[in-house]
């Protein structure tokens, strides 16, 4: 089992050093990801979910810095890698998949050129055989007549096709881990479904693990095996996906799951979470959810430890002590 872990993040801390003080965007999070597993990192804006992804990719923007912890990828600590080594890993081992195909392809190069550009990094072969590989990749993501499509520019393809091309580029170098960060603006439902199916498809073909960075529990329900809920820079609850939906242990998860309207049931009034998400530069002492929590008590003045509430299920709430 332990051999199958491809990514182990331990006590990761990514802080931003601003003029007004230190913002702890990611404040000591730990999780593991097995080969072929799909993890959903759920959180609201400012919860640190995207910064977790950028930290893994070694692309934390200025003035942020990873100040502590380890990111163990296939037995090697990514935080000890040089920039060049990270660059290499980003292309071949860990790969970001963009959800929006319109902005992630270069409009002035053909699809074939863009695929070959990526393949060149992996294979030292003449251009002709690289183009053959490129066509194979397009066929893998179910693009009909792949040879003809290589000469197309992105604008000559439909949105769905472009999405597939982006998918093909991301698997060109057989990555072990795909990170899918969703943009805040949502796609149309049918396009989103196509994208999710494409990722499942890619996962089945390559056996890659996927991390979904999302705010949508629907995506988690549809796609993930494990889920980690982030709030104000920390993982407040982590478990297998069904267990989380059946027995949410943290009040934040519980409230969040209840506050999302469901297409298949009728309610008169949705239970809502009062208050606003906290601002990271003015976090309350103790549990950061306490000001919005219906169960808060004196104990919450102190930040809760991580408690195991069930096998493979942890929660950072004193109620679970």
């Amino acid at each position, binding site marked *: 089992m332990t051999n199958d872990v491809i990514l182990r993040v331990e006590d990761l801390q990514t802080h931003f050093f601003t003029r007004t003080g230190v913002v702890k965007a990611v404040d000591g999070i730990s999780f593991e990801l097995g080969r072929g597993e799909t993890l959903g990192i759920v959180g609201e804006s400012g919860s640190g979910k995207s910064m977790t992804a950028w930290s893994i990719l070694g692309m934390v923007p200025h003035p942020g810095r990873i100040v502590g912890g380890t990111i163990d990828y296939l037995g090697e600590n990514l935080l000890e890698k040089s920039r060049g080594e990270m660059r290499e890993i980003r292309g071949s081992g860990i790969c970001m998949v963009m959800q929006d195909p319109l902005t992630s392809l270069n409009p002035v190069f053909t699809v074939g050129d863009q695929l070959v550009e990526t393949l060149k990094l992996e294979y030292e072969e003449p251009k002709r055989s690289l183009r053959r590989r490129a066509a194979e990749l397009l066929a893998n993501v179910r693009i009909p007549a792949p040879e003809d499509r290589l000469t197309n520019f992105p604008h000559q393809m439909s949105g769905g096709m472009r999405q597939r091309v982006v998918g093909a580029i991301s698997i060109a170098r057989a990555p072990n881990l795909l990170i899918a960060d969703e943009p805040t603006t949502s796609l149309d439902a049918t396009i989103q479904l196509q994208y999710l199916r494409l990722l499942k498809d890619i996962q089945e073909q390559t056996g890659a693990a996927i991390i979904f960075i999302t705010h949508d529990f*629907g995506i988690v329900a549809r796609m993930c095996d494990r889920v980690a809920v982030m709030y104000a820079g920390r993982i407040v609850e982590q478990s297998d996906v069904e267990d989380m939906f059946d027995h949410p242990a943290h009040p934040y998860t519980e409230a969040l799951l209840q506050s999302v309207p469901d297409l298949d049931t009728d309610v008169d009034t949705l239970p809502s979470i009062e208050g606003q998400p906290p601002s990271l530069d003015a976090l309350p002492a103790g549990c950061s959810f306490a000001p919005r929590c219906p169960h808060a008590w004196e104990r919450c003045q102190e930040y809760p430890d991580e408690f195991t509430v069930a096998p493979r299920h942890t929660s950072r709430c004193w109620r679970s002590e």
Partner: protein
Amino acid sequence: MAAVASPTAAEGVNGDGALVRLEGIRRHFPVYRGNLLRRRTGTVKAVDGISINIMPGQTYSLVGESGCGKTTTSRMLLMADEPTDGSIYFDSRPMAQFSGAERRNFRASVQAVFQDPWSSLNPRMRVDQIISEPLITHQRLSRSAVRSQVQELLQVVGLHPFHAERYPHEFSGGQRQRIAIARALSTRPKLIVLDEPVSALDVSIRAQILNLLKELQSSYELSYLLIAHNLATVRYMSHTVGVMYLGKIVEEAPPIELFTDPQHPYTKALISASLPAHPRQQREEIVLTGEVPSPLNPPGGCAFHPRCPFVMERCSTDLPVMREHQPGHATACHLYD
């Protein structure tokens, strides 16, 4: 006798009792080529003959994918655009015949709340200025009356009177949307157009805003035209839902009806594409082939036929019309003829 008729029965075909009635609304945009020798090369039929009734105190929702004409429809209701064809009735008066005073009254009676409260509020105006701007435009009020109304509105939407002197950047997304709602309420509207009111907000805030909108609807008998792509939100908020595809309404029903017994293949596909609420929940996934066709050159017959899994021969030639199969549930599809 007529007075006892229930609102649903009165809704009927002619839309008696509707606050707003759209009848055969079309909005076609001409497309030109060339600068020197400009010539008209086509027409985009953004909205192509839709008829809907918005009842007092109720929510009518439009769902459909981008480019189906939802927003164009709402722009015509807001008088930001004029229909190419068809009429809009407000309180049974056709908009085309409005006098100047009626137009002003209409503009005060129909307000809007938009998706993104970061761009819909002027960053250089204080909250009290933002909220009172429509008040000052539409009513002659003394300064103290304006101030007291602003205070009242802030409380109605769940903010504090002291927020009046702050600027939009000092608020979070949910609070900004509350400000936008207070502004919309300031003219005592009868109808508010809600264009994706919560999709830009954090998940934990969305329920707050939806509940606020529902509360306001029942306290002030407001009608809403809701545009949203999240079907669960639509189910929670609406009294009637219209499904749009390429400028036409293809199915219309009350939400429970529509989501438990969808008839049009496009509605079925939309529902099947919405995400589950639980990992064990399985939906039959209807994957549509192809893309939404360009409204510049829509397919003949039923516009959905090239992507429809149940396509028949006549679908490419005959245009299906809306037919009511059960009371209040109408579909435009040859499968149900």
